[in-house]
């Protein structure tokens, strides 16, 4: 009799346990996302990346922690002014995004980030890397667009890359503007799936468009 009662309780509790675990994940992710939003320095970015990495290590089937860890490392690399330190951070970001892709294949957000990282890695030494890396960066972004035509982020990153490419090499404000406008139009309609899904870039897009004027 007692055994049956125990079993009944366990059965009753098990969804709660799962729910609690899921809740714990979402809570930890949300907390880390808050920290990411307020992070300013490269050290702070690295600390957030570490937070996401810890979640990723505990949740092996989730791509988002890896994705955000990679994103934070990318931002850390962009903020860092020492060129010698940029590469290791971009390499770490690259590894993170590839690990994320192993969990979630054909993911538009992941390909966007891959294109972003590749482009930023190129900018460390454009003279010697441009010919090797511009192509793969554009390829990843094209794939991201194809996988989810409603995702504004691939357009933002393309626009941003074009914005910072010298005019003579096919970049510049004029060429960036239509791309950023497309991105902005998509941002207006975009709804993130849930509170922890990628939802960054709108402000950045607005700021870049402002600079295009």
């Amino acid at each position, binding site marked *: 009799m007692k055994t049956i009662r125990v079993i009944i309780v366990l059965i009753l509790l098990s969804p709660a346990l799962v729910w609690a675990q899921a809740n714990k994940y979402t809570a*930890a992710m949300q907390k880390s996302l808050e920290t990411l939003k307020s992070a300013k320095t490269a050290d702070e970015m*690295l*600390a957030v990346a*570490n*937070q996401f990495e810890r979640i990723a290590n505990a949740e092996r089937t989730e791509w988002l922690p890896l994705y955000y860890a990679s994103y934070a490392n990318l931002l850390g690399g962009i903020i860092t002014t020492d060129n010698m330190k940029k590469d290791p951070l971009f390499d770490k970001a690259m590894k993170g995004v590839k690990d994320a892709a192993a969990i979630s294949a054909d993911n538009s957000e992941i390909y966007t980030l891959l294109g972003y990282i590749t482009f930023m890695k190129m900018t460390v030494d454009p003279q010697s890397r441009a010919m090797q890396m511009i192509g793969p960066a554009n390829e990843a972004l094209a794939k991201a667009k194809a996988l989810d035509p409603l995702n504004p982020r691939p357009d933002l990153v393309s626009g941003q890359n074009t914005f910072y490419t010298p005019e003579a090499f096919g970049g510049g404000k004029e060429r960036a503007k239509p791309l950023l406008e497309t991105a902005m139009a998509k941002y207006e309609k975009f709804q993130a799936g849930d509170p922890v899904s990628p939802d960054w870039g709108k402000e950045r897009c607005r700021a870049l468009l402002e600079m295009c004027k």
Partner: protein
Amino acid sequence: MKFLSVLIILMASFGADAQTIVSGTVKTSKGKAVRGANISISNSYDGGSSDSLGFFRFPTNEQGKVVLQFSSVGFNTDSLIVELVDGALSLNLVLREEISELNAVVITAGTFEAGDAKKGLVLNSLDVATTAGAEADVFAALQTLPGTQTAFSENGLFVRGGSAAETKTYFDGLLVKNPFNTQLPDLASRGRFSPFLFKGTTFSSGGYSAQYGQALSSALILESKDLPEKTTTGISLMTVGGGLDHAQRFKNSSLSLGGSYINLKPAFSLFKQRTNWDKEPEQYGGIIQYKLKTSETGIIKIYSEYGRSTVSLFTENLDSLNKQDYFSNRNKNFYVNSTYQDFVGNKWKVQSGISYSNTSDDGLFDTDEYERADRLLQGRVTVTNFTGSLSSVKFGAEAAAFTREESLNSLKRHYTDESVAAFAEGDVYFTTRLVARFGLRLERSSYLGMFNLAPRTSLAYKTGRYSQISLAYGRFFQNPEDGYLIQSKDLGFEQAEHYILNYQFIGEGQVFRVEGFYKDYRNLVKAAGSTFNNSGDGYAGGFDLFWRDKKTFKGLDYWISYSYLDTKRNFRDYPALSVPPFAAKHTLNIVYKQYVAKIRSQVGATYTYSTGRTYFNPGSSEFLGDRTKSFQNFSINLSYLTNVFRQFTVVYLSVNNVPGFKNVYGYHFSDNGSIRRPIGSTARRNFFVGMFVTIGDDKFVR
């Protein structure tokens, strides 16, 4: 009761009663603080990051024995088991530096690595294309690096006192027998290969790997590009001709076709020519390339080219001045190279290749008809095992069959050599700071009926974050030049020993290198009339300096290279140990490049200075005792980036020898020594204008 206890246990797993504060420091094995390290408890979200002093502190609700993991960028991830109880836990953690290609020492003695994507690169294909005075010729651009001599009137790269025959070119590991267009009297020709075929160029001025044989002085190792990124068509229009190429990209393969036509007559007619051309150089050719990606890491590459060129000219006959000598040449060149490489498992890499070349020349020396043909077939297999994280062992074997045929009027001669070689080489990393390379190469030539065994070794030690010193020793062999071999079978291998000491600093955007060397030559071919033996010898010693800086001035890139060379040799028909004409004591190159956004152009300039060279004067008491005056050149170029019909376009302009320095490369004398004529360039100045359009790519030049 039991029901309650189960419930309590279950509740406890949600709860947050017991808490431990984990704190401490993360340092390197040398005691330096590691900032930004990630310290975490496995399978939980708990953890923290270290600050700039290596301190960390975080609370956790986990209890009992747990695995504490710690890691940081550039370090090996480590872990330890700790017991968590209520209260505080203090830890002193040590991280060990990760051995990666980025921070590990590399073997650099004698070598200029120029992989496009690698760090510390020295020259890439774009550098070659934008070096003023080089006009996108790989060999001309390499002449701005230390250790090389400026070649004026003879084909080839002259490295550290070595003759042109002592430098060999390798295309994806396979020896290229004729990397240059045909040598004309007193005129150096361009290399056959476009710099844009290659993703990596390694130029070694000595002490190179046991993978490469048949070169006494220097190895130029060219590594071809992988699949092109997309389908494009290129059009080039130049003052000297034009070209059309198309690269079609398929999912996992690509096919490229190209054709070109070059005629120097229009360009030559603009500037007064010292050379008396009968028919200015004219050349046409085609290229077919096929590349297939067989797996993530595997690739098959096939490259083939065919080209024909014709030229004829008159030269002054110093022995009877009312008569002119006539020279004409027609060259046909076919080259095909096919390689395959892939990883077998994680630890083994296999590279194999086969190539065939057939180069033939014919024409007239006055009224004498000459013909010459070189045919080379070779195969090569290399297997590399990556044993440790960086250490590797390489084994390989080569086989080649070479034939030269010559004829003068109805006289004919030829020789055939079948050679085999095997090599083994190991890169051993003792630590991230210390690496040694041990190599051994065994060769056999059927024609010479001889073996040789060449040991090669290098050592490199990293002295600081950006600096390292390297040492290298090696023994090098090569067959005597074809011109001797076809006349005599009773010859042996020529030999050189290299000793190299190198210091290198590679900071961000800056490279500084100083390298001292000594070369000991033995068994060089001596000629006395029509008898030949291996009794020649010689030496070369000196040092090189190189400084490249892309950092100090924004958008400006410059390099300075200086070579000091002290060399003498007794070979060919020399009566005694003498300074050869291809060795200047001092050589200086200053190369400048800048992208000027305002005019959307890359501008460049190259200044070269070298002290005079020896020349043979029949009236002089000392053999090669006379020297020319010093040589100077100043060249400029400009690449204007634009769009033509929305397609990416480069307009290129270059002027060679802007100030019009009157350079003398040497002298020709009449047999009796009474008349001498200086050898110089075909015109005092040269200029070149070209337009290169890339269709299908509005973003970047290929």
